[in-house]
């Protein structure tokens, strides 16, 4: 759906992106993580064609930028316009032309048929995002959470195939965060490809299927989230004592199994040998004192790959 190859972007003396290669599969919810200034927003602006790379290429899977929904990090809106007015103007501009699913006509923006279809689409979005009562309100009079919903409405207007969200839950209260999360999951179920940048690792863990981590413009980790988390998860079996021959047998089951000091650890994919390991221990007459599954969190991976653990308040 979206592929970046050796993407490099420099702002005068600052290297914002350094040979970034990324592959976003169709239908994925792809989370891009990284410290402030690591190049996340730069990447989104490159995808949208707002800025141009110094080197490398972006393949948007044949999509024009007008078929991509984009929600910017900061909610900047023409404050003196009403919500419906704002959405109507955006709808008339385009991004709706090649949208048979949305029922928006391809014809002139001012045609009666196109206008009716656009009005219907906006009504549907306002209802879907709980913005009915705000339709006539000025954008400048709305709260941050409501503005973010308006932002999502403009993103979804015209039924885009690819959706880019820059910090979609930034500054939102827990209820608004949940609303945004549910919307993202609903879009994922509808088959949309979603690419989001976030600092909210809990949010990313809940909604993303794929994750990539940037550090100083470089890609330091990328892959499907379950694999990333699973590869680092462990099952730890604590015993009273572990005979050397039994430890050898356990280690022979998988290279991912270590056994010493009365403790057997099944790392990553070796966790599949849990039943066999337990049977060997029980058959060997070993007293099992504790069985513990330790799942690595995205936060641990993030801190590890970005070397952020040394900052005050962070956990190692």
């Amino acid at each position: 759906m979206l592929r970046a190859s050796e993407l490099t972007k420099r702002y005068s003396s600052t290297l914002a992106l350094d040979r970034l290669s990324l592959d976003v599969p169709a239908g994925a919810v792809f989370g891009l993580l990284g410290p402030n200034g690591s190049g996340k927003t730069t990447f989104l602006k490159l995808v949208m064609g707002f800025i141009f790379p110094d080197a490398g290429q972006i393949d948007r899977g044949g999509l024009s930028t007008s078929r991509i929904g984009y929600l910017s990090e900061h909610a900047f809106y023409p404050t003196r316009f009403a919500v419906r007015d704002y959405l109507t103007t955006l709808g008339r501009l385009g991004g709706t032309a090649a949208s048979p699913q949305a029922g928006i006509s391809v014809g002139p923006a001012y045609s009666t048929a196109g206008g009716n279809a656009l009005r219907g689409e906006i009504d549907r979005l306002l209802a879907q995002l709980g913005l009915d009562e705000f339709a006539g309100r000025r954008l400048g009079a709305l709260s941050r959470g409501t503005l973010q919903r308006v932002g999502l409405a403009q993103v979804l207007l015209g039924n885009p195939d690819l959706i880019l969200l820059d910090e979609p839950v930034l500054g939102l209260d827990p209820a608004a965060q949940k609303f945004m999360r549910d919307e993202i999951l609903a879009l994922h179920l509808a088959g949309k490809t979603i690419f989001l940048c976030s600092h909210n690792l809990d949010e990313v863990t809940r909604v993303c299927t794929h994750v990539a981590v940037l550090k100083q413009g470089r890609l330091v980790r990328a892959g499907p989230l379950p694999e990333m988390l699973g590869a680092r998860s462990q099952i730890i079996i604590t015993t009273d004592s572990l005979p050397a021959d039994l430890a050898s047998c356990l280690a022979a089951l998988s290279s991912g199994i270590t056994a010493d000091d009365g403790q057997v650890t099944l790392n990553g994919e070796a966790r599949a040998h849990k039943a066999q390991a337990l049977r060997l221990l029980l058959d060997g007459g070993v007293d099992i004192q504790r069985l513990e599954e330790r799942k690595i969190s995205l936060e641990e991976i993030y801190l590890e790959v970005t070397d952020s653990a040394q900052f005050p308040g962070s956990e190692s």
Partner: protein
Amino acid sequence: MNRVCTLSLFLIRDLFRSLASLVPLAAGFTFYGIAFEYGMDQAQFITVAGVGLGAICLLTALLLSGRANRASFYPFAARLPRRSELLAAVPLGSLAVTAVMALLMTEAALLQHKLTLDFPSALWIIPTWLAFWLFMAALALPLSSLVSRDGSHMVGYVLITALLVANDRRSFLEERRLHWLSRAVTAILLPMATLLAQASAGSYGRSYLLAMVLTVAYAGVLFGLATALLKHKDLLWPE
């Protein structure tokens, strides 16, 4: 074209919902108060009001391009297949605002008996002014921060100032034997000067038409320059 009209209308509404709208309005009122103090005949009206409203057109185009040069415009830019559509909306909006102001100004002057117009020859004012204003609106594009790259708009301001000063001091240039510079300045400004002079004299022959074509061509060249500058510009709009 629909997208350009929609965007243009939005820019006008955005401008007139902000305090910045006071700038062209104040300029219009001030110009009216000064220019029409002693009344005008049609010949004066064509040149004086044409140039005055042309300046307001340029000012309005700069203000509209400023409205488009902000982070709130990302969703709009994202929906445009070509950046030139964003550019086209600016002169269109500026022309529309100036045309409305010209209409109001003309009506006010006629009602106050400060202007006499002869019909149907007065109808030639419309294409004359539109061509001139189009040039002025297009001139504003390379001078705007929306289009500017690496301070290119400052170069534009310097060049225009130099051109106007040189035009004002042509006799000085002649005295210093800088005939070539004097002739160059005359040649550059000739289409617009001829357009207004011919219309003012009520002569709508071949010279007038050629001047109009060249003025519109100037506008086309300026629009092309602005499009080329904006085409590969990084849109890092103030947030």
